[in-house]
């Protein structure tokens, strides 16, 4: 494939109202491309590995920005930047898990432009796929990464189905841990999905990473009061401390009373295409003291069922260690 880096010709729409954006999205259907901060979009398009007839730039729609208190928690506009989320007082006070996750995405420059909606809707990381090779996810009939010689250090341990690419979002595991609700709109109206339902793996839909339907726009994310002010733990391990994707991350929320874990939601990112909720761990630690002893007691559970590829076996001990740190912290 030749090397490109100039945007190809396409229509550009810059609506200022959600309704107009929905109309355009509906009209262009799968030939339209929704863009927020553009941090995932422009690479695809400039490399000409994916194409669209129209770019629908949502960034001028003010109603999709901001953090608002609601009767049942907080609603975050999908176009709110990651920097705004990292710095927002309401979030830092009650949902610091998400603030922390947003604060370690990519780099300061990218966080200033990148949006929450974009971060959770970005495509998977697989260098073969992103290079424009005709793999399963790109509509072809093979996987370049899941072979004995594939360069698959960053790829998935779980839930692979023809495709072994891993999810890249640092905020997605936090949203699953917080039991967030995703608000989706189309010209036909609004529907909501839990964060767990929003993210889909290759067994469900190999060409898409979310449950967004053609013509739909993710307009907001709602965080329920139930998990406000819980005990949180977030940690991202990447090769570099900035401008890098997670090798593994962990987002965990604990309801703790008198040192005992009442409820928890423990989620790992970058180990499969979607955030991986560790319900076996959650059940095992329920009613146990939050601390090192309980952490030690779940050895092997976080990574149970992992299938290592040729070069990503290191993710298994890393995942185990991060989950233990979350419990013992």
């Amino acid at each position, binding site marked *: 494939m030749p090397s490109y*880096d100039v945007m190809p010709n396409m229509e550009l729409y810059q609506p200022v109202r959600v309704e107009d954006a929905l109309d355009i999205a509906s009209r262009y259907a799968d030939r339209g491309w929704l863009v927020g901060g553009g941090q995932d979009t422009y690479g695809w398009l400039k490399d000409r590995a994916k194409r669209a007839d129209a770019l629908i730039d949502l960034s001028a729609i003010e109603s999709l920005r901001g953090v608002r208190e609601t009767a049942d928690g907080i609603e975050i506009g999908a176009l709110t930047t990651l920097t705004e989320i990292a710095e927002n007082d309401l979030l830092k006070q009650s949902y610091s898990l998400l603030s922390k996750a947003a604060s370690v995405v990519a780099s300061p420059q990218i966080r200033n432009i990148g949006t929450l909606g974009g971060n959770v809707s970005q495509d998977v990381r697989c260098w073969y796929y992103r290079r424009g090779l005709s793999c399963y996810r790109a509509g072809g009939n093979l996987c370049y990464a899941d072979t004995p010689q594939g360069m698959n250090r960053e790829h998935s341990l779980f839930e692979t189905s023809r495709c072994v690419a891993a999810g890249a979002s640092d905020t997605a595991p936090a949203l699953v841990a917080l039991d967030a609700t995703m608000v989706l709109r189309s010209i036909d109206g609004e529907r909501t999905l839990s964060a767990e339902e929003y993210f889909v793996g290759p067994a469900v839909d190999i060409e898409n990473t979310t449950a967004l339907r053609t013509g739909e726009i993710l307009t907001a994310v709602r965080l329920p009061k139930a998990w406000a002010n819980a005990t949180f733990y977030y940690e991202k391990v990447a090769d570099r*401390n900035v401008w890098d994707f997670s090798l593994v991350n962990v987002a965990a929320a604990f309801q703790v009373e008198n040192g005992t874990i009442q409820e928890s939601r423990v989620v790992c990112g970058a180990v499969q295409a979607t955030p991986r909720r560790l319900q076996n761990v959650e059940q095992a630690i329920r009613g146990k003291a939050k601390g090192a002893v309980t952490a030690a007691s779940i050895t092997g559970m976080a990574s149970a069922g992992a299938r290592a590829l040729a070069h990503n076996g*290191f993710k298994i001990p890393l995942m185990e260690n991060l989950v233990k740190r979350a419990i013992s912290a």
Partner: protein
Amino acid sequence: MSTHIGFDFTPPDVPGKVTGEIKYAEDYKREGMVFARLLTSPLPSGRVVGIDATEALRMDGVLGIFTADDLPPVAPPGNPALASEYVSFVGQPILAVAAITEEIAESAIEKIRVDFERRPFVVDPLESLSPGGANAYPEGNTLVRTQEEGPEGTPIRGAEIRDIKWPQSAIDALRAGKEPAGGEFTTEWTFGDLDAGFAEAAAIVEEPFVTIGYPHHSLESRTCMAYWENGKCYFHGSSQSQSANDNGLARMLDIDPADLVFINEATGGGFGSKIGPYPYMAISGNFAKRLNRPLQLRITREQEFYIGSARSGMQGWIRMGVKANGKVSAIDLVVVNDGGMTGAGSGNSSAQHVTVAYQPENMRFRGISVYTNTTPRGAQRGPGQNEMAAVLAPIADKAAKAIGMDRVAFRRINAIDSGGFQGGGQGPVTSAFVREALDQGMRTFGWAEKNALAKQNGSKVRGLGVGIGYHGAGGRGYDGLVRIGPDGKLYIHSGVGNLGTYSYAGTCRAAAEALQVPWERCEILRGRTDNHLPHSSGQGGSNTIFTHTRTNWVAAQDAITKLKEIAAQDLGGAPEDYTIGDERVFASAEPARGLTYAQAAARAIELGGKFSGEEYPDDINPITQRAVQGLAGSGLIGVAKDNIPGEGQPPGILVGFCEIELDKDTGKIEILDYTAIADCGTVVHPKNFENAMRGGAVWGVGLAAFERHVYDPQNGLPANTGLYQSKPPTYLDVNVETKMGAVNIPDPQNPTGGRGIGEPTQGAAAAALASAISDALDGHVFNTAPTTTDMIINHLAGNDYSTKYLKTNTF
């Protein structure tokens, strides 16, 4: 007493860089300029069977295509600007398309059909050396030099490609970390008696090692713009060097060097990849000529990965024998280099590092450089030396431990001094004071105090490391050119490039110092050939400070001689009766009797001849001759070739000390402290010295812990063509502060006392960090550069880390 050397100043291009006003090659536009883009190979190896550009050429705005047929043929192992029959790596340029806009040019690329015939390919040198292994070129797999290697960064000349295969037993042995007995090498040397050396050893350490190449990824890609006027080619390029490009680039353009104006005011990084003219310059200049339009060939970030050169990787084996007193008695070293598609390895330079760092009493080196179907390789900051420093440091630590010796003491016993040697030929050095540097470093870093601290802190474990970086740091025989104008100002003409190190300015201080001219009364002429620039070295090999403080010094001495001769001629007496000071030449015995520099310059113009450049020395280079001719009659000319007597290689040596915390849960490293002490003679420009220390430390972290090529062996595709994928360390991955110092003992062979230090700054940091990682893990030797997060986690988890079997380009 020094007035300029050893003092800070602001190089004249700094304000432009701070404000963004300075221009790089890509910033230059020209009326009527058109745009060219490259079509690159999708295959790692193949034959171009046909090119059909019919559809592209029919597009509105497309002006033409340019192929290898438009350039003189380049036989392997040369690196052609455009592939002709064979393509040998993914990303190799095949043709260029020109159009009136960049968008049209890029769309035209999509319309061109290239038919290929696939060929076998290989990305791992040991695979190619294996019986039946694929060869990167139809002619073979190994670069064999038929004449001595030129300076770093210069094109390979006098070489041929051969097909060399090793017995499978040798391949298996090396992969298993043993001596590859029966393997054929293309470079071999020995000094002393190896067997006797090992017989004397109280301990013998034997280890394999692998270092992985990685791209230079210069921030400024090698975009060029060229236009032709009145038979001259005006060429905007991105180079580390200035005058060193003249002859090679003129050859590429098939013109007399006098008809070339090479313009390169600022360069956004080169790191060894832009020392001389690079092949792709031929496209811009010749395509512009054919279209008779100014033409810009913009190189994209991805293309800069492909064609912007990379460090060679190594797979090797070392056996080190150490006497009970700590002296290294014998070293046996094997290096198999991954030469990429250009075949150039740096094994000999790696061996040279070993000789300087440990001064072994007996040593053998055997090396071979193997072509792979990966990107072109070339010099990159301390090529050979720095990656060797990174893998050697933990091995040396193991040797020290084997005889129960402190790691710094071990290095101190083996340190090079002014009577020491470098390389397989055991050539002399101009001076060396490494023991002094180690002593200073131990004090500054607090080696003893830190060794006494607790090692474990929760999941974190402390590691301390020490490393040595080395590179030859100076050349001789280039020319200096200064001019005193009738305005009395000193104009220093510098053919030195501006690769970002500011040594072009630092070296000019030598002329100001010699002529005792205040810096504000000096002006540096540089950056474009028509500024009349002398023959200067390429900006590679850490050489500039040594090389061009000398050239500027000798040019200034010539000017001083002429000042005195003019004064004697006009005011009586003999030239030796005169001296200089306060921008005057005057009688030593009667200071009032003299001429200002302005007056002397005016007299030089009147007198003509040698005084104003109508005549010049016979031994100066033709480039300098043309420069002097261009200046003739404009002032008092000081021009001379550096004939300062002396012998030996000036060494640039740095010792680094590193303290880290390694988190055993995550494999992450935090650098708590880094101290660097240089043995580089007199520090010519302190501020710039500090910048070199910091920058080198950052890239040392990259070499030791992050950066590497990743190729898929199934299809020869590179995985990390982008800058972020290549993982140069960021601000948050490196030490916050670099404690630094210099021994600051003048080199006797430089009038200013200075030697270069650029490259070793990376090697010392990489070595110190690798040493610290090993120390944190109870002396575990990874034998890799880089040692990445996954390797550390795998080691701690008891998994085999994937570099157990030596291989480059793949995990």
